[in-house]
């Protein structure tokens, strides 16, 4: 039994306040989203589902939502198809240029998104890819790759290669050995990587703002809307997003690795 020292109590108090600070914005959107007022009012005078109805009945909101979902799914698939093999390549052998490739794959984290957006805009405009949904997905893949690679590399470092060698020694082909022995064991890392890619794309604003042209993703639509007025429809969408993310987080905790944080 741990004795509670005054110092420890003080620390726990600070931590409690920071936890509260972190949850506050998430908690506040729920009551607003169920408000019966015609404009933003807190606390709400009464309860209704009008803002949810407005969201779910408005093509102005649903079209961007579908576009964002499509882009996010494509980003997830693409970043796994590229990132998982890259993680294998980086962990399984030494070769000339490997360190450079590893640094390159991490670089999108430190380059500010707005800089990458401006750079890609020039190229995409030439290729007539502005406003095309898969153009956004390819750009989002660049942003998701560092996290996918870091998570899967961490998974592969924890995996004992001898198991794969044993399967090979028993006559399995390389593909069968990887598919039946290695992948099931690094599945938590791959699942977390997939969640990360999906959510990072679904929330991304700046790249989509520049490359989306007239086609708005959900974050772009939300940004424009927030800039003009503080409309409680956003609260309803926010509440739905928080519920979606919590569900995904619970799934990632169940099937994933360390809640999806790289390096854990």
């Amino acid at each position, binding site marked *: 039994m*741990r004795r509670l020292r005054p110092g420890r109590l003080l620390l726990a108090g600070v931590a409690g306040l920071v*936890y509260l600070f972190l949850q506050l914005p*998430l908690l506040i959107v729920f009551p*607003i989203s169920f408000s019966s007022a015609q404009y933003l009012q807190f606390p709400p005078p009464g309860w209704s589902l009008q803002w949810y109805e407005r969201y779910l009945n408005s093509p102005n909101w649903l079209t961007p939502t579908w576009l964002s979902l499509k882009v996010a799914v494509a980003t997830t698939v693409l970043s796994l198809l590229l990132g998982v093999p890259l993680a294998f*390549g980086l962990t*399984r052998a030494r070769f000339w240029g490997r360190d450079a*490739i590893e640094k390159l794959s991490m670089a999108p984290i430190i380059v500010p998104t*707005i800089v990458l957006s401006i750079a890609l805009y020039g190229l995409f405009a030439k290729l007539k890819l502005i406003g095309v949904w898969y153009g956004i997905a390819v750009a989002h893949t660049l942003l998701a790759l560092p996290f996918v690679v870091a998570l899967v590399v961490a998974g592969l470092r924890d995996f004992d290669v001898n198991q794969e060698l044993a399967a090979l020694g028993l006559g399995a082909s390389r593909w069968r050995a990887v598919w039946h022995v290695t992948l099931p064991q690094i599945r938590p890392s791959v699942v977390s990587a997939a969640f990360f890619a999906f959510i990072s794309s679904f929330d991304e604003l700046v790249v989509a703002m520049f490359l989306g042209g007239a086609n708005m993703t959900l974050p772009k639509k939300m940004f424009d809307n927030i800039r003009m007025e503080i409309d409680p429809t*956003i609260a309803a969408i926010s509440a739905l997003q928080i519920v979606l993310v919590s569900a995904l987080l619970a799934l990632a905790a169940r099937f994933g690795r360390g809640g999806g944080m790289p390096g854990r």
Partner: protein
Amino acid sequence: MTPADRARRRAAAGAIALSGPATLLLLALFAAPLLRLLALSVAGGSLAAYERALTNELYLRVIFETFKIAAIVTLLTLALGYPVAYVMATSGRTWQLVGIAFVLLPFWTSILVRTYAWMVMLGRNGVVNRALIGWGVIDSPLPLLNNLAGVLIGMVHVLLPYMILPVFNAVRNVDPNLVLAAVGLGAPRWRAFLRITLPLTMNGVAAGVTLVFTLSLGFFITPALLGGGRVVMVANLIEEQVRELLNWAFAGALSTILLALTLAAFWGISRIARTRSA
């Protein structure tokens, strides 16, 4: 060539083939466009765009302001994040899981959602001001929105997890027996912390500081929405140049400057951190 050499060579060839597609994508759509941006900003051998960005007092002030905000945010997240990470890492299993959930839930929530919520809360008549007046802490509403305070609150909220998680990892990796040994030998708790835990967690602090500072430099959404046009960071200036003035050459020069400053900050901080923790 021995069979071992041949096997090694085969493994290397396989690894290169697996790394190929992603590497090509990164070269074609990440490295090449950035180099092209650099080339365009000095198009025709003219440095006029850079001259404008680096001599005009207005733009210099935006660059200075960006660094100032990044520095304040880094210090605030460190001051708030370290105690939280320490408590999380030294609690029992249940509290640790609760703490991780409390940090990860906002981390995974859309920045737009969180910024919207802060706009609702921080206004003159917002939840925060009314609660503070109701409790008798203040008499008149504090200006918390459309100014630096609002931007700082929003940015600290977004970036705290990036500080907490690496420090949490570092504290968790400190062998508790070291602290117990020091306390057993008569050191007060605070000295055991200063002499043992703190030095051993400097690598986590360095990782957190590097992440928070470099990410802060490129912030766009939070200053755009919580700054009310009064707080302009470099990213906002770039967006404005493109959206309102369609001035791509100048936006390119500003982007190149922002990229250079970010890389310099990243390199500088990780260098200091490496010599410190070595």
